Structures are given as C-alpha cells and as structure tokens.
C-alpha cells in the first residue's frame, strides 16, 4: 500500500500542481560533435530512436559540459538566452526548499498534532529525544523498536522530529546555514512526512488556526466524498483551481483498498540471525479512506515542495 501511495504521490505531484513548480526550459543542449564514422559493415535503413526526447531543466554542469564538448561559446550563450541574462533571472522567483521551522508550523496550523504530553515540540532543536513521540505499538518494546519503526507508520510529529536533519535542520555548529535546495533525500522525506500527516488530517477536521473561516474549520471532503475547495485551498495556501479539485476527487474515487496485513517484528541476534518478537495486525483500510489519504498527501506534497 505504501509503495502505491508513494507512486501515486509522485505522479500527482507532477501533474496536479500548477502553482508552485518552476517553468522548465524546453530542450536539452544540442551537441555539435561530428557524427561517429561507421567502421563496420554498411547497414541499410535509418537508425533512429523512437524514445521520447528528454525534457528537463538545464543545470550548470550541462552548460559546462556542452562548452567543453563543443568548444563553442556561442552555444553556451544560446543556452543562457533561454534562461535569460542575470538581470532577468535575478527578478524571477526560484524554488527553494521550505524551511524546517516553517514546515512544523505549517503542519500545526493545518491541524496536525505536534505535541508531546500537551506541550508543543516546536521548535525542534538539533539535540532532542524523539522517542516520546513514537506510537504506542512501537513504544511498547525497546528490543524490536527499529523493526517496528521500519514497518509500522508513525505519527507526523515523530517523522518530523526524527528526520530533522534530512528535512533540513540547520547545522550551525558546522558553520552552515539551512540548505536552500531540495535534495532527493529531503524531498523523499518531505513526502513521507505528508503521508504521515494525511491520516490525521482526514480523520479530524482542519482545526488549525490557519484553516478557520468565520469561526468554522474548513472542510476537506464534501458529503459525497469529493474534495472541497476550501479544504484544498487551505492545505496548499493558495486558491485551488477546478482542475485540482477534479484531480483530487478522482484520486479519492479511484483508490483501491489496502488489505489487512500481519507484520512480523524482528530483532537481530548476536549471531546475525533474526528472531520474530511479535506479530502486529494492521487493519485494512477501505478504498475511500485510502483515497482520501492519498489525495491529502498528494496536495501537500505538490504544493509545498517549494516555498
């Protein structure tokens, strides 16, 4: 279920957001190298590839590679003209990772529980013990905790706390500011965080202060289980478009149920073998519930990949 969840989120993140993704440059750099001389037997016909042309933003390494390869500074100038001169590019909004601190407050203001024993865990410092935030199942035993944490989903507050380094907590002791760019690791962990928060948001109302309108919390889903515009708007901090609502509702409608499962928790013995300590029964999740969680996670992931 979690693999499907992540695959859906990735696709929906690509398709569903029209508000926060940067504009991609149209084409990859063209090489001016002369074609390779055929030395083998002559072959008839045209050897062409039917693979689709790769479309991706050009990164600086590409620019230098093309220049090294082609030796033609005009080609580089052409690439630069696609981006624009510094006068132009400096005036454009870029897409940086959301600050770690901001992420925590965002979750609270949308209604996610970020408290331990009634006290807010924010701001999370570098040195902190996240074990009080583990769910009861994993907290019950210490010996199989690692196995439990790897197999049983945890509340968002634990993911936020435990993955603070990956999510970008600044390393001031190393004289480093908070990383500005999203890495693969931080992006993945961000999606994990939103996947963990989704069940809470679906189960409760959007009860955080940020989602109140005239004293009432915004609603995520209508009575017919379609996505509610106010709820999606509040989740992403930006007015939801009709297309986004439609896509969100489709995710809810087309999700498949997650069957019940038994998860064996293990502990590694001194000789390297593993022993099963306990078996946890994970309840089935209905198709509707799965869909709602997917939809919420996808909206959050797509919208908040950039600040």
């Amino acid at each position, binding site marked *: 279920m979690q693999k499907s969840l992540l695959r859906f989120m990735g696709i929906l993140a690509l398709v569903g957001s029209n508000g926060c993704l940067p504009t991609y440059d149209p084409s990859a750099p063209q090489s001016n190298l002369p074609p390779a001389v055929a030395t083998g037997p002559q072959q008839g016909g045209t050897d062409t590839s039917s693979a689709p042309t790769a479309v991706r933003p050009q990164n600086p390494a590409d620019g230098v590679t093309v220049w090294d390869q082609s030796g033609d500074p005009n080609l580089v100038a052409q690439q630069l003209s696609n981006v624009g001169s510094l006068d132009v590019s400096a005036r454009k909004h870029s897409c940086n990772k959301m600050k770690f601190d901001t992420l925590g407050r965002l979750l609270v203001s949308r209604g996610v529980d970020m408290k331990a024993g009634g006290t807010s865990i924010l701001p999370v410092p570098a040195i902190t013990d996240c074990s009080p935030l583990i769910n009861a199942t994993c907290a019950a035993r210490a010996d199989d905790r690692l196995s439990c944490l790897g197999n049983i989903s945890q509340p968002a507050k634990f993911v936020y706390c435990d993955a603070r380094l990956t999510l970008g907590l600044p390393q001031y002791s190393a004289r480093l500011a908070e990383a500005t760019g999203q890495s693969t690791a931080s992006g993945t962990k961000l999606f994990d965080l939103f996947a963990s928060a989704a069940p809470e948001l679906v189960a409760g109302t959007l009860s955080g202060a940020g989602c109140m309108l005239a004293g009432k919390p915004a609603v995520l889903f209508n009575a017919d289980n379609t996505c509610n515009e106010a709820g999606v708007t509040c989740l992403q901090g930006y007015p939801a478009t009709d297309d986004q609502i439609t896509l969100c509702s489709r995710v809810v409608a087309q999700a498949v149920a997650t069957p019940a499962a038994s998860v064996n928790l293990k502990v590694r013995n001194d000789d390297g073998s593993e022993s099963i300590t306990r078996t946890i029964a994970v309840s089935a999740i209905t198709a509707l519930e799965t869909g709602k969680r997917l939809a919420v996670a996808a909206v959050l992931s797509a919208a908040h990949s950039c*600040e």
Partner: protein
Amino acid sequence: MSKKNCMSSRLPSGSATLFAMGLGALFAPAMGCGNAEVGAAPASASGEGTPISYEHAATTTRPSLNLSTYRYIPSGDGLSSSTGKVDNLDRDVDYGLALRTASIKLHGDLPTLTDIRRMQAAVKAGKNDSTENDPSFVYNDLVHTYIFGTKDGSGKYVTTPEFRRQMFNFWRNQMRMGGTLTALFQASMTDMRSVSLDTAPALAARLTVEETDMTNLFTQSSNTCPTFDPVSATFADGSCAAKTDTFPGNNVPEGQQAGVLTNPGFLAQYYSNFGFRRSRLIQEVFACSALPSEFAAKPKQIGEYLYSSPWDFDSVTNNTDGHKAVFDAVNLPRTARGGVVAKNTEFVNFRGDCQNCHGTQNHRAPLFGVFDQVGFRSPTNKLMVTSTATGSPFAQIQEYQWQCNPDPAKPVANAVCTGAISWKYGLPGIDFGGPAVPNFNAFGKQMAADDTTAKCMMIRLWNNAYSRDDVVDQLALVPDAVIDDLTAYFKSNKYNLKMAMYKMYTDANFIRF
C-alpha cells in the same frame, strides 16, 4: 556549498517516484595561491623568521567561458522594480502565489484561509480604487500587517511574534550561527567556558524589528548582546561585557562595543588560525562577495604574478628582503596554549599570488584576533588566535604585516603598530596594539560608510524573498541594475530594513511569476 544529509527512509526503499526539480547549486571553489614551495628559505639575520608555504585547498577550477558580449532583450519579463500598479489582466501577475510566498517568508506559515479568501474576493472584483475590491490594495495591506503588525491602543504598530521569530531565524541563517558553543578560555588548556551564538542574530533581528538604523550592526556601542526568547518571541536587553559563571563576557567596555563585530558569539563561532575566518565571514556576510574583494583600477604584472589588489605589493609579510617577520624571542617569546614556548621562527610567506586576498585580509584580521575561542578580548590585546607555525603559537602582528616588526632598539611587550588596520585600502588606518581597547567602533564606522554593506543587506533580503540561494556560497548574484534603486531607498530611509522589506514584497516584480 551545502552539505546533503542522507538518511535511510523508514519506509520500504526504492518505491518513490520523484520528479527532478532541476535545481543545481554552483560550487564556489577556493582559489589556490600558487604552487607549494620545495623547502624553506633559511633564516638569515638574527630573529628573522623562516618562511613557510601555506596553501588553500583547491577543489575545482572556475570555468572560464570567454563569452562574447551579447544582449538579451526580454519580451514581457523582467520589469524594472520601479514599475507602478499594473492592470489585473497581466497574465504574469498572481497575487495568490505572491501572498503565499510572502506569508511563508514574513509570517513563517501559509496564509490563513481568511486572508486567502480576502485576496480571492479582491482579485475577482478586479477594481483599481484602493478599496477591498482592489487586489493591489488588499495584497499590500496583508503584507503590511505581516511586516509592521497591527496598531495597539495608542495607535502604534506592534510587530507580530511570527515576524520577530522570522527575522531572528533569517539572521541566524545569514550568519550561520545559533545555539551555544563551549571552548577554551584565553591561553588555558583546561578552562572551558560557554558563549551564546544567538545574541548576534538577536541583535540584527532586533535592529530590524525596531526599525533602527541597520548600520548599528557594526557601530552600536552598548547593549549589543540582546537575547531572544523563542517561545514569547521577545527581545531582552543584554550587554556583551556582562559576565556570568560560565560566560566571561567579551572584555570590551560598554560604550566601546561595535555591534556584531565585538559580539563574543560571532567571534567564537568563527575562531580560526590568524583570525582569517572571522575576517572572511565579515566580508562574505556583510559585503556579499568572496575574497579578493578589493581591485585596483588596473591589475599589474609583477614578475610571475598578476596583482590586482590596490594595496601596495609587498605591503604584507612575505619572504622577500625587507618584508620578513622578525621575532624577539627574549622580550616577546612565541607562546602557545598552556604557556609552551615555540622556539621556531616560522612565518607564513604571503607570496605575490596570495596578496590579492591577503592584502585585504592582513589589514583586517588582526583587529579580531585579540579575541579568544569564546570571544573574550585579551586584557593586553595579545593576539589570541594561533599561527600555523610549528607548535601553533599564538600569532604575532608582524606575521601579518612586516611593518609591525618589533623595534630591536625599543623592545616593548605590547607596542603600538600605527595605522595597521582598515576596512579598505585608502581609509584611515586604525592602530593595533598597545594597552588601550582597540578602536573597534572606527572599523565598524568604516564598514557602515561603505555602500557595499547597504547593498549587501538588500541582496540578502532579495534572495530570501525570491527563494534564491546564497549570494556568495551558491553565487546567486543580484546585479546592480536590479538592486540599486532598492538600496537607494534603504539608505534614504535611514537604513530602515522593514521599510525596504515592505517595498520589496509589494513591488510590481514580486507579484509576477
């Protein structure tokens, strides 16, 4: 360069489908000063130092593109920042996105649903009449509230806790410091003291929030170690000279402090050999460029070196005749931590290719070198930063500038070296050494008077607002054509950062995507 932390996911691996964000960071390579010498020149005269080569590690070389001059003429993009209100039919304008990103930066959270609805209604109405039906009016009003807060009973604006917290975090990130540091006190091998790394960002944040002249960051002479309570998001007064059981203060009297330049946390965080890291940080954070930072009108070819600094060639210590460091082992022995005497006469040979940066560095760093690992000033103004000579003795001023060599006719333990320090070439020199507290404030005033520091604050604000990278580490440059009028506005409004911030976030360019 940012470090990437990779932690294995708790969830099953290899399943996530991610789209490439296409973000790359340019790496700013360190420039090597030249090839290492083979062997060291022998000491000739009595007390004359033995030169050692010291290389910065070079990682990659900067590509030289040699592009021909061309001019890109944008069609519809890149508006001048002085452009006024625009028609709502402009397809690039998106008040919703602008509100979202402004709220994230200034408020530390997404905009509330109430604010989003208010903005939506105004966009839908689409009027141009400075009412609730005018999206420009509503957007500006919301941003004004984020920055200036709301009026209290007396009609005075009170900033929100969220804005205060955001400013504190902003400056923490700019200065790359926060938390607490514990390190050795003075020349002790065992005496550990603690220093807060939050007071410098707190000072900068407080100046911002209270709309105080931001040049006070370099010149404020007292109350320069305020504290910030992250729970209540309030500032409290604090003196950097005040001592506690674990924190010794900075040993600079109130009235002679110089903003963050004498902040003990700031100095402790960037302790290094010769104090060069402190000097480099001041250059990069407050002047927004890496070294070399000073350029003569025309570079000169001097022997094998292309020399571009305006400082006289050989104005700093090096292994040429008349420019070597001389040590007085009797009256001024080289002592290391714990009182160990280093009996060598090694000194760093700042060769011609090193002098492009060290012409500047060697005229700045000694001023900050009198502070130890916890930011406490030596009572005798002895340099408390170590040299790279064998044994790591504490540095002596003549290792930076040969003009400060001890006078053999008048051996004085703490001689004054006249005019040794200045922010830039051509500015009045500030004396180093002697028993009096160094004139940190004069250095701070030189920085404050330099337009580069005002422009740098605008550049850092700009890059934060537009979600861009760091101007030095990732070369997210902002050209003069983009930032000049904002800098002029900032200066003309008594260096009020809040006002500059409001102008930036409500600019016609900011609302376009």
